[in-house]
């Protein structure tokens, strides 16, 4: 089936509406058809779209706990926000900032180390077994140690994100540096290129293409790292909101937080994707 763009969008909308409808109402059918409705659809676990939406507005201080809008009222939103130093806005900002820091530091350090080791046979032979060993540790297992070392503030979250991003970018760069087209290197040398020129004009640009390819997974990894860090121990952040909500059995709060995280994830991925498309525009051959 080919399907025009309109049919595809229509099908997607249908899927979304159906999911929301099942989520919202399916459990109400349980008394009538017990065999049809799995227990996991219990709103105790997964809440309901309507409740999640209400919860989202309340967490964002757009409405009060009884559902009245605070937006029109003078200073009401501010007063609500001031009550909680980990309100949804602050938590989002904290999680986002730590994610971006972890991403940036991870990409930069992974790239530099990858380039150095990829270019030097000696260094790569010395360090390769260590890096392979380190890489085979499930990094998430290190989070409790990281939180113990760096405390429950931002640093431990950035370090966790860095741990995940570094290895991803490092291995990509390392592979890229080893796969540089040697004919381009010879060509440059025949044109009298000095070593630093070969590095800056051939090796770095050609490894960058490998790094760009790893940026989309890297940003997701950074977000995962920060959230897990916040689960283990944090004062602020979306992960902290989730842990508190879990302790209180507030599934609507957890779901609302997941919605926010999904939105952040999508925005970050799209941002990286468009940067990548621009930087790799020469790969769009038009063939």
């Amino acid at each position, binding site marked *: 089936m080919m399907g025009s763009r309109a049919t595809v969008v229509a099908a997607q909308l249908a899927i979304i509406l159906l999911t929301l409808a099942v989520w919202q109402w399916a459990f109400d059918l349980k008394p009538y058809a017990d065999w049809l409705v799995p227990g996991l659809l219990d709103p105790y676990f997964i809440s309901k779209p309507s409740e999640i939406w209400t919860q989202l507005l309340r967490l964002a201080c757009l409405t009060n706990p009884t559902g009245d809008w605070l937006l029109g009222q003078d200073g009401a939103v501010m007063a609500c926000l001031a009550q909680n130093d980990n309100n949804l806005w602050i938590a989002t900002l904290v999680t986002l900032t730590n994610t971006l820091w972890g991403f940036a530091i991870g990409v930069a350090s992974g790239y530099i180390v990858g380039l150095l080791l990829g270019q030097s046979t000696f260094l790569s032979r010395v360090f390769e077994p260590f890096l392979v060993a380190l890489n085979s540790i499930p990094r998430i297992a290190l989070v409790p140690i990281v939180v113990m070392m760096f405390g429950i503030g931002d640093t431990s979250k950035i370090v966790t994100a860095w741990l995940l991003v570094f290895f991803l970018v490092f291995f990509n760069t390392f592979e890229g540096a080893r796969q540089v087209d040697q004919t381009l290197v010879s060509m440059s040398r025949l*044109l009298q290129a000095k070593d630093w020129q070969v590095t800056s004009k051939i090796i770095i640009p050609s490894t960058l293409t490998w790094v760009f390819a790893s940026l989309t997974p890297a940003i997701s990894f950074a977000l995962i790292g920060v959230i897990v860090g916040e689960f283990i121990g944090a004062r602020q952040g979306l992960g902290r909101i989730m842990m508190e909500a879990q302790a209180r059995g507030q599934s609507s709060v957890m779901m609302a937080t997941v919605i926010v995280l999904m939105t952040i994830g999508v925005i970050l991925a799209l941002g990286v994707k468009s940067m990548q498309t621009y930087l790799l525009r020469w790969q769009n051959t038009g063939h």
Partner: protein
Amino acid sequence: MTFAQRDLAVAPASVPANTGPVRIRARGLSKEFEIAGKRLTAVDRVDLDIRKGEFVSLLGPSGCGKSTVLNMIAGLIPASSGTIELDGKPLGAGHFSSKLGYVFQRDTTIPWRTVKKNVGFGLELAGVDRASRDRRVNEAIQQARLNGFENAFPGMLSGGMRQRVSLMRALVMEPDILLMDEPFGALDAHTKTDMHRLLLEIWERQHQTVIFVTHDLAEALTLSDRIILLSARPGRLKEEFVVDFKRPRDAVSLRETPEYAELFSRVWRSLGEEMSKVGA
């Protein structure tokens, strides 16, 4: 008989033999490789004298070591024994003379650089200032009829256009000596002829010293002053042919002349003996 044929037939089909100074001299040039523990002689005691302004083709069957000879001259690979001199001074591997320009068979355009920045790559490396770089690059682009594609990336171009970019990237450096390793080997027949025209046009104006490696006899005859035929592996000098067709040459009409046909069959026989040795 076409006009071009008559024109060629009337004129004495000879060019005075090049008696200019020898620019590249190779003596006893040999190359041995070790492959899977076996020693293999790729090039066996080759002597060459390439004179100033001469267009010389190294012709031979695939695997005869002709590219190896060229790469030893370029300094890309070390010789196992023998000497190479450029203007009387020894050339060694790993040392790349600025007098040499090199064109690869493989596409060596830099994919993330536009046509303009590819052509200007060598000038940029040499630190030539932007204004004169732009001027020289633009001239080269005009000459290679790449205008309109200055800001295109190689991925958008055809194989022939990419090879023109590589050729101009070498030529814009104004090398005295141009080493070409089957530069048009990967192109279709029509594009190849276009490239021959472009190269003849440039060479007949500037008379660089050219060493041109090819296994395509028609190409060697069209372009060269002299063809050096190498034997099947191990590559040894087999025979030399002077190609004294009148210049300027036209890549297409030249091939319709009787002189061309006569020389073609002479070289062909000699080349054929080597081809049969490799079972090609």
